[in-house]
């Protein structure tokens, strides 16, 4: 009697195992793959046109995908996730040791390094709270000055005064905010090379970050990193 029961049990187990084996290839591989997703940071680019059509373009790129894909591209100056510049000829910076400049910036205290107040545009390069900031304001149209990232009241007053003096006619305002860790990673490859993949890794580790903001009469451009996979959830408009 016990033997019969045991045989029944073996038969049932065999049946279940056979069924499982039969069904296993039918389970879509994507379902399995989704559960093993890695880094979930996304690079978002949003362009909103101010014209009557109101064109909006949103591009969302998972950083993990970019990290994997870039090393596979070997075309022109991009190889193994690194961009090689021939002595920075294309950047018209021949003879300039960018690594030395970067070291100097890294080791210096927060503050403004470059301030250019021209007739056509104002340029400001600064380091603040671990970020490298570049602000460019063109002055040939209406002014779009955000006045953020200024450290103290005097600076803000000064900036507002300059804006007023410029006739509040800036046509575009560009803000670039790059974490110093990302800058370090970009220049970690060696001389005359930018390690894009290392930069992306550093960016992913940085968390939610606003990178670029451009605002002019025609377009508003925003580039940022966060962990959301749709732009609508992020409050994309500033």
């Amino acid at each position, binding site marked *: 009697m016990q033997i019969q029961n045991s045989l029944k049990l073996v038969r049932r187990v065999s049946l279940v195992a056979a069924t499982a084996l039969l069904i296993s290839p039918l389970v*879509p591989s994507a379902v399995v793959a989704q559960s093993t997703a890695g880094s979930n940071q996304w690079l978002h680019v949003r362009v909103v046109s101010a014209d009557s059509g109101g064109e909006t373009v949103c591009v*969302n790129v998972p950083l993990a995908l970019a990290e994997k894909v870039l090393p596979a591209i070997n075309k022109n100056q991009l190889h193994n996730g690194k961009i090689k510049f021939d002595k920075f000829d294309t950047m018209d910076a021949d003879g300039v040791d960018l690594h030395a400049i970067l070291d100097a910036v890294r080791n210096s205290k927060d503050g403004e390094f470059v301030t250019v107040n021209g007739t056509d545009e104002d340029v400001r390069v600064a380091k603040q709270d671990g970020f490298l900031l570049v602000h460019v304001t063109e002055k040939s149209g209406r002014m779009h000055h955000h006045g953020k990232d200024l450290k103290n009241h005097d600076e803000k007053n000064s900036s507002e005064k300059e804006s007023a003096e410029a006739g509040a006619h800036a046509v575009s305002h560009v803000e670039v905010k790059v974490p110093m860790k990302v800058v370090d990673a970009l220049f970690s490859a060696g001389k005359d090379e930018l390690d894009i993949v290392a930069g992306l890794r550093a960016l992913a580790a940085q968390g939610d970050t606003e990178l670029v903001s451009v605002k002019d009469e025609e377009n508003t451009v925003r580039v940022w990193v966060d962990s959301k*996979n749709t732009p609508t959830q992020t409050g994309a408009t500033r």
Partner: protein
Amino acid sequence: MIMLAKVALGFAGTLAVTSAYTFREGVMRVDVDEYRDGGTHVHLWLPAAAVPMVMDAVPRRHFIEAAHQAKEWMPVARIAIRELAKLPDSTLVEVQDGHEHVLISTQNGAIKIDVTDPEETVHVLCPLATIEDVSSIIERSVASGDPGA
């Protein structure tokens, strides 16, 4: 009577397993609707698993030139597809221009392209596994270098 029931059960079981196997990679879907007189209306639903089989049957010479041109981008495409398959349902590109709307997204392990326009709508859904299979076939055909294979 019992024999008939057994045959019916076997037939139904075989049909169910065959259908499940055929549709295991999902469905490749193409819908095109042109909203004008004599406009085209295409609605194509194809088992994704059938696409590589069909491609295997096509003589390689028919796509060997395209394969050579795409050769250097094949590893990139393969990696991109694998990484896309790991994503949850996501919007990759969205363009809105007046009444025109373009959306490229991933949905349940497939890439989805939706174009909505006052004059036409196009919807394409292709499982990423199918794209990977197709790119593998193209890669193999380049590697073998046998146009008649």
